[in-house]
């Protein structure tokens, strides 16, 4: 150890020699270049968002005149137009209903299964867990079309409730995987003590497991919130009635009709309405979101 320290000292001294002066200069230059890249990427991420924001406050004339200039007059009525004329108010409520209902059901169903799969040893428990996890490897488009026809035969298409059911069950494997990981780490002593006191398994689940697995439930919940709010493809294929559009479908329909009926202001306002809730969620749960997505990226597919 002493030797190591000595060598470190030696190294430290050497850095004052002319030989390493060059090294230090190249180090500063490299750091400068790296920083330039960091700033450049910051710009690539932030500018499009900033541009969307200020474009949402311009009228068509100003937009055509120069799409990149800042607005001279702030047209806040674009938001009124988006909410009322382009029905984004309705889409917002539709999305909200689907997201909240799907979130609650998904978390309940998955945490029930996760409790059984993480804390009970029984014949086939491992196979069932692997069975769930294998579902995450399948690309959406492999099942989307048969799922669409099947849902049609069950009369689940064209209904927000149908969308809820599809979202709940297609996202189950990921939630189970995440919540299982958290429940496994809860010591058995808690539930054993409660069991001795005469608590039923059901009471243990609701009174002990769920509260203790709360960090996992939060991560799974936020990730699903994001998935459900942003989901586009299934909603697009399942819903054709404009009264039942979710926000992403509303955006795609509005941008799809741009050739015939241009209202850029309302479109950009719609984009802002679509991303604002997630920006707020990201602001609050930044750490959980990053952690959860990193943990889930392998299983989500």
């Amino acid at each position: 150890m002493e030797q190591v320290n000595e060598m470190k000292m030696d190294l430290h001294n050497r850095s004052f020699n002319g030989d390493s002066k060059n090294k230090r200069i190249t180090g500063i230059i490299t750091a400068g270049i790296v920083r330039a890249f960091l700033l450049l990427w910051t710009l690539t991420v932030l500018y499009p968002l900033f541009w969307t924001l200020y474009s949402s406050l311009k009228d068509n004339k100003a937009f055509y005149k120069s799409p990149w200039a800042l607005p001279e007059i702030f047209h806040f009525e674009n938001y009124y137009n988006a909410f009322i004329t382009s029905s984004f108010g309705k889409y917002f409520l539709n999305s909200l209903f689907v997201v909240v209902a799907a979130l609650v059901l998904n978390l309940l169903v998955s945490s029930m299964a996760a409790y059984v799969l993480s804390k009970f040893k029984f014949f086939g428990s491992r196979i069932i867990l692997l069975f769930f996890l294998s579902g995450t490897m399948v690309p959406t488009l492999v099942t989307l079309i048969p799922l669409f026809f099947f849902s049609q035969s069950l009369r689940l298409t064209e209904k927000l409730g149908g969308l809820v059911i599809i979202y709940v069950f297609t996202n189950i494997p990921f939630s189970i995987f995440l919540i299982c990981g958290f429940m496994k780490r809860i010591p058995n002593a808690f539930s054993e003590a409660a069991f001795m006191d005469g608590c039923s398994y059901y009471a243990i689940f609701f009174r002990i497991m769920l509260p203790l697995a709360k960090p996992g439930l939060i991560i799974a919940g936020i990730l699903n919130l994001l998935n459900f709010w942003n989901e586009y493809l299934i909603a697009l294929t399942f819903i054709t009635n404009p009264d039942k559009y979710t926000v992403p479908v509303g955006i795609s329909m509005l941008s799809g009709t741009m050739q015939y009926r241009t209202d850029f202001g309302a479109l950009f306002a719609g984009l802002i309405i679509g991303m604002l809730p997630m920006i707020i969620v990201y602001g609050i749960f930044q750490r959980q979101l990053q952690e959860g997505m990193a943990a889930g990226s392998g299983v989500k597919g």
Partner: protein
Amino acid sequence: MTFRLRKNISRNIFIIIFLFPALAGFCLFAVYPMLKGMYTSLYNWSGVTSAMKFIGLRNYTDLIGDPYVLKAFKNEFLVIFWKVILIILTALFFALALTRLKLNSREQSFYRVIFFFPNILSVIIITNIWSFVYHPTIGILNTGLEAIGLQRFWHAWLGEPETVLGALIPVTCWAGVGLFMIIFIAAIKGIPEELFESTIIDGANEWQQLIRIIIPMIWEQIKFSVITIIISTFGTTSVFVIAMTQGGPDNASQVVGSYIYELNFNQYRAGYATALGVVLFLVVLIITGITNKLMNKEIDV
């Protein structure tokens, strides 16, 4: 004895009750559609009427002769190839910059938050914003090229067969790089500091440290990321394509998922579309196996 038996019965009933909703829903809405897809792939079926004619493996033999299937797979692999290279290199670069460059913690978390941000946006929002970047007359890319006098590089980026794929790939990278940066940052921070100190004593520079310590120490995460990008690309690129170009112009940006979508919802060839879905599933399965094998081998060497 009877007590234990009764206890066992109530335990088993509990397991069944808690596992049933998740298992039944998953089987119904994820597994069954996949099996149903295999079934309908043997039929000549439009999807619109109930008229189905059994044609055996004809759909599969037709797939071999379909030039667009070949094109879609070629595009898919091109996208995967570039995505793996671009995302891994950029994410690694950013992760190194944020961990090894002596940034203060405020700066560090600022970049983390910004770079991860595109990951929380809906595909439909990302594609809408980027469509304006690539817009032939008002897009930032063309106006930017004009500003620096490079008008001869003007393109209708999403409207020309030669440029469309090259325009799509950066968008998917922009959307995904932050997640892998987070994974790499966590991995690099997990490397014990003594390892770096010992190589400093050997006189290794930052570059040698990267090759000798960082890459081998985070190899697991790199491997994991490569596999994740490959598998998730099969699922996500098609959504970008459907939202941005619908596979056009003239199928130049068609990938397998978007072609399945197109076959079913625009050409009404549901049987044929599900056959391509089955092929896609098998390809994903095989590729996952191969990448797993290859990556493991490399680490043994």
